[in-house]
Structures are given as C-alpha cells and as structure tokens.
C-alpha cells in the first residue's frame, strides 16, 4: 500500500550514524527535521541554504557544498 511509504514507525530502528539533509527551496521537501527528531542513532542534520547556492533539490548546482559537508561528517565515522 502507498501508506507503507513512511518512516514514522521505523526510523527509531536505525542504528548506524545517519546524516539527514534538506535544501531550503526544495519544492519536494518532506520532513527532514521530523526524520532527524525520530532517529535514536548518532545523527546530523543540515539545512542547505539558498544563500550558498545549495537551496535546490539535492543541492543541484552545488555538489561540492554537499560533498564537503557530508564527507567531512562521514570520513571520521569510517576512519579505521
């Protein structure tokens, strides 16, 4: 069923560190902060800003801004 497309009942079961982002002007934005709040794991939330050119869906047009923010979070987690 379409209703199955929801994280409301399962987000708390995520154990691994999780990076949640959304972009300020994304017309398809859908509750990144709600997901972040529901997580019980180590977590990070980033709202990408239009003022840095990263306000569009998936930060289109500013991949490097996303890469820097996300990989600077991820690299230490995966450090040996």
């Amino acid at each position, binding site marked *: *069923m*379409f*209703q*199955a*497309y*929801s*994280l*409301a009942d*399962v*987000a708390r*079961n*995520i*154990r*691994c*560190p*999780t*990076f*949640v*982002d*959304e*972009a300020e*002007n*994304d*017309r*398809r*934005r*859908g*509750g*990144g902060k*709600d*997901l*972040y709040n*529901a997580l019980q794991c180590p977590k990070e939330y980033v709202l990408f800003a*239009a003022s840095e*050119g990263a*306000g*569009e*869906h*998936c*930060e*289109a*047009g500013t*991949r*490097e801004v*996303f*890469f820097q923010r*996300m*990989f600077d979070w*991820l*690299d230490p*987690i*995966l450090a*040996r």
Partner: protein
Amino acid sequence: MTIYFDNPEFDGQFLRALDCVPLGAQIGEGWAIAAQIQPGDTTGWYNAWSGYADRLYQLAVKSRAAGHRVSARDAFLRASNYYRTSYIFMFALPVDPRVVGAYDKQTDAFQKAAGLFEPPIEILKIPYENTTLPGYFIKPDASDAARKTLLCTGGYDGTCEELFFSIASGALERGYNVLTFDGPGQGGALVRQKLPMRADWEKVVTPVVDYLFMRPDVDSARIALYGGSFGGYLAPRAAAFEHRLAACIADAALFDPAALSNKMFPPDIASALARNDVAVLEPFSTSCKRTQPNASSLDAACGCTARRHRWNTSRCSRRTHSLM
C-alpha cells in the same frame, strides 16, 4: 533560483542536467541545447537533448576510432546524461517508445565510456530475488585494497548512470569505492525489467550489501548507504532493517511521503489512493496530464501494474498543487 526557463519543472530538470558537470555536462552545451527549446514544449525538449546527444555520440565513436580514449570517454559520458535528460517529461504511462529508446541510449553511451576508464568501471548484474539489478562498481584506483565503500541509491526517475555523475566523483576523490544500482521502480529495473517501486527498500539493499560482502576489495565494516532524492526515503528505510551498514545519508530526506501526498490530494483522491482504487486514480492521472501538458505527470516509478499509482500520482498532485 531560476537558471534559464520560467517553467519551474523545465528549469529544475535543466539544473539537474547541468549538475552533472564536468563529466556529464558542459554549461555551454546546456545553454546551446536550451536555446532550441520553446517554453513548455516537451517534444522540443526531447528533440533538442537527444539530438545533441546523437551528435556527441557520433563524435565519441570517431574519437575512439582514432585512438583518443579520453575524448571518446568524455563525449560518451555527456551523451549519456543528455539522453537521460531528453525523456524526463515523457516518463509516463502509456510507455512512449522514445523513453525506452533514449533510456537504452543513455545506458549504452555510459557503458561505452565505462570501458574507457582506468581502471574500467565494472558493469554489474547484482543478484536480486529471481533476477538481477543493473549497477556499476567504481574504484578510486587499480589497487585491490579493501576500502570503504559508498553504496548509492537514487530516486524514482533517475538512473544508476546519473548517480555516477551526481555522487561518485566526490566519493572517489576521497578514496571510496562506489556502487550505484537501479532498484525496482528505477532506471533499467523499471524500464527494461518492469519492476515497480517498493516501499520495503531493505529487501532491495540487503542483496546489494550481500554482494559487497563477497568482494575482497570492499571493507565490509565500512559500507555507507547514500540515498538521493526519493532515495532520501529509501535509504533510511533500508537502514532501519539492514544493520550491516556503517552509516546512512538521506539527501533530500523524506519522513512520511505517504502523509505528505495525502495532504496534497483532494480528499476523494487521497482516499482512492489509500484503497489503490485505479478506477478513480486513472482518470485523475489523465486529467493531470491534460491540464499540465508541460508536466507529463511522470507516471513515475510506474511499472506496468496498477501499483504504479502509489507514487506517481503523488508527483502528479504536487504539480497540480503548484498551480493552485
């Protein structure tokens, strides 16, 4: 942010194509292509992008024949992204043969380029239920060292080829292996295998993690799952059940896409969606297309079963909503 087109759907897809710079797009080419397109003309959009891709593909073949491997590879790559862009507004039911043709071309062009990388990009068929899923494995260099690996899952109208442009470069430069793939409802799994989208994405990711576990060049303790666009729902969904992942990234995160869509629908459509009542949903979907010729409504992630309405109709409603 307006890049070129007043129509936000056109402009969004234009930006999406340009986002693949430098390997998947060149800004000047994008502008030259856009200049051929009349506002709101989805056929013109298809012709301009696919026509330019045809030219590039021929140039790539010529370069390759003359032994210019880098030039050939790079032209094949841009052709791939431009073919993918060409059909985006035709991604709807009934299936337009131009979608299938352009999808095949975006795949073929990418795979021609794959063999010209050093080391070559590996073309995968990942075991999944009774079939396989298409994907790619890309290494930062030729070494067989066991490395950290970024497993990438996309949205409902992208391809595993597009994921190479949008996410792989950042990971490869930082020493990650990258695996991109199409799950049900995406890319080749949808267009060629007719597998519809499914909500329980752990059923899709777990076989891919199984595959990664078998590779000696993957450090199985250091696999991170990236989800972009609708993957911002799919990746956390999978991570809630697949606990071998070391990290999860929800890029354009979604929390409750079902509820979000319900809010956007008129009540009768929302309840028809809950019942999956195709008799109500089909005419609604058709009327969306009629009232928004630009939108084509993208019977996204559709598959060829009635289940297609679960997600695609919501996208349709978003567009309807944006006009209200």
